[in-house]
């Protein structure tokens, strides 16, 4: 069983990483998604009206979360595994779930920082929102849990560090650009549309956009919650400290 004290320790161990590497984190979680927001605004064929701006902001928030949960957290998990740090945890009377929860808390704190920073930037860029705080928090949390679950799965199954990094990098960006996050679903080829609209990033973007508009997308949140349950359950099952 996971223990709160152990989860806090795991979180603190990884927080030291953030303390030392705040620059690259900001680059990944803020600057890149902000740039994507500006880029999407600039090339938008329908003009940068408020509705589009809100959609692009939602897309950038999801992009930031995807980079944090999959690319960055995935990298961290892979690094722990392939540099032998995970072995240190395996020597302790520690439940693997405590380790995963500690990492998740770390990811969620980063996500909160990244999202807050993006919302401030958006305000400076003139995006007007009627944000509902709780639906936004719930949406961000569900996206993080779902995508972090994917990270855990990749980190436990990868055969090498390079294989895992390639997967997390591809998935971190790919899941955002394959989903109708920055563009309308109408532009996606029909055979892809059914799949892309059900990607967690697409569901997340819709849920975040609804929250930014002052409402909530309960259906999308519920599906996202179910996906989070599946990915995390699988992640927990695969995260073992004992090899066969």
């Amino acid at each position, binding site marked *: 069983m996971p223990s709160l004290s152990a989860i806090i320790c795991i979180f603190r*161990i990884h927080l*030291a990483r953030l303390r030392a590497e705040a620059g690259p984190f900001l680059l990944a979680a803020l600057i890149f998604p902000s740039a994507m927001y500006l880029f999407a605004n600039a090339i938008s064929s329908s003009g940068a009206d408020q509705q589009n701006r809100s959609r692009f902001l939602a897309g950038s928030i999801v992009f930031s979360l995807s980079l944090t949960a999959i690319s960055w957290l995935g990298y961290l998990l892979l690094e722990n595994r392939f540099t032998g*740090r995970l072995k240190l945890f395996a020597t302790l*009377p520690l439940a693997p779930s405590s380790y995963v929860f500690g990492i998740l808390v770390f990811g969620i704190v980063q996500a909160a920082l990244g999202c807050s920073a993006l919302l401030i930037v958006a305000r400076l860029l003139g995006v007007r929102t009627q944000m509902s705080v709780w639906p936004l928090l719930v949406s961000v949390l569900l996206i993080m849990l779902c995508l972090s679950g994917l990270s855990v799965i990749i980190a436990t199954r990868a055969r090498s560090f390079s294989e895992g990094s390639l997967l997390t990098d591809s998935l971190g960006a790919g899941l955002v650009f394959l989903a109708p996050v920055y563009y309308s679903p109408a532009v996606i080829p029909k055979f892809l549309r059914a799949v892309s609209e059900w990607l967690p990033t697409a569901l997340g973007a819709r849920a975040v956009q609804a929250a930014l508009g002052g409402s909530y997308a309960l259906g999308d949140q519920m599906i996202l919650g179910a996906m989070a349950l599946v990915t995390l359950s699988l992640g927990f099952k695969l995260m073992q400290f004992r*090899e066969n």
Partner: protein
Amino acid sequence: MSSAAPTIGEQRAVVGETEATKKFRPADDEVMAVRVRGLVKRYRDGTEANRGIDLDVRRGETLSILGPNGAGKTTFLRQITSELRPTAGTIEIFGVDAIARPQQVKRKMGITPQEAGVFETLTVREHLELFARLKGLARDEAHESTSEIIHELDLDRETSRRVGQLSGGQRRRILIGLALLGQPPLLVLDEPTTGLDPASRRTTWAVIRKAVARGTTVVLSTHYIEEAEHLSDRIGIISEGRMIALGPLDELLARLPKSYRLSYRASLEQPRVQYFATFDAAQQYAVQRGMAEYSLARASLEDVYFELTGHRLEAEEPAEEIARCPA
């Protein structure tokens, strides 16, 4: 490794029970620190890393495990520490089934894996204190235990430095410190001093001895004969997945049929070593061949190891050509 042919050890090791062995033979009802029976580890590719190992380690005993690279030492220790699931056999740690209850037995163990990474962005104190908390120590206990270990491992001046700024040897000492946190009753150390300079190695030995003086049981693997000789009550030699010899140093030395070692160098040749049954026979051999420079000594654990495994340990030693003299 899966060859059915008998190993050198199997051919030569004859287990005879001496007084020294009896000292380490457990009473029937005694709860061992470590009890291993019929341990087999077979990997998916068919490699048999451990082939039926039996072992009892009494409380407070220090056991060193020697063996060539790939002999199965690390596999053996990783099973004891619950990091690796055995294919067959049983492991008990202080009477608790280590296979069924890994978390419970880990509470009784301090473990230094052979290859483990450290968290470079933490300071030395943070690293040790956070891991002490993960071991279940209360805040004050973690602080106290950390201070003690930092001092014992001679890391006082590095307390506030980030682990990433330390040398390889200092990082290795931190890994040993992590095992010592909370004074666990059993230490399992996989090559604890590999990569350490001689001074750090001696500091580490002192720390291990101090733990032993407190009653801690120690099981360690090593590549250093000197380490095994200095620290151990008993020495086990693993070769090709089997424990081919186990006993106190004196008993292992007594197994050598030729227990005098003559080392010499003939002209520009590689150094040569030959073994003799008696001191006189060795001396006579040297005189007969007019050797100007030679050394004659009682055989050491290194010689026993070579006799049993056919391998030399400690690669930093100059290569010697070994000959088994008929004398």
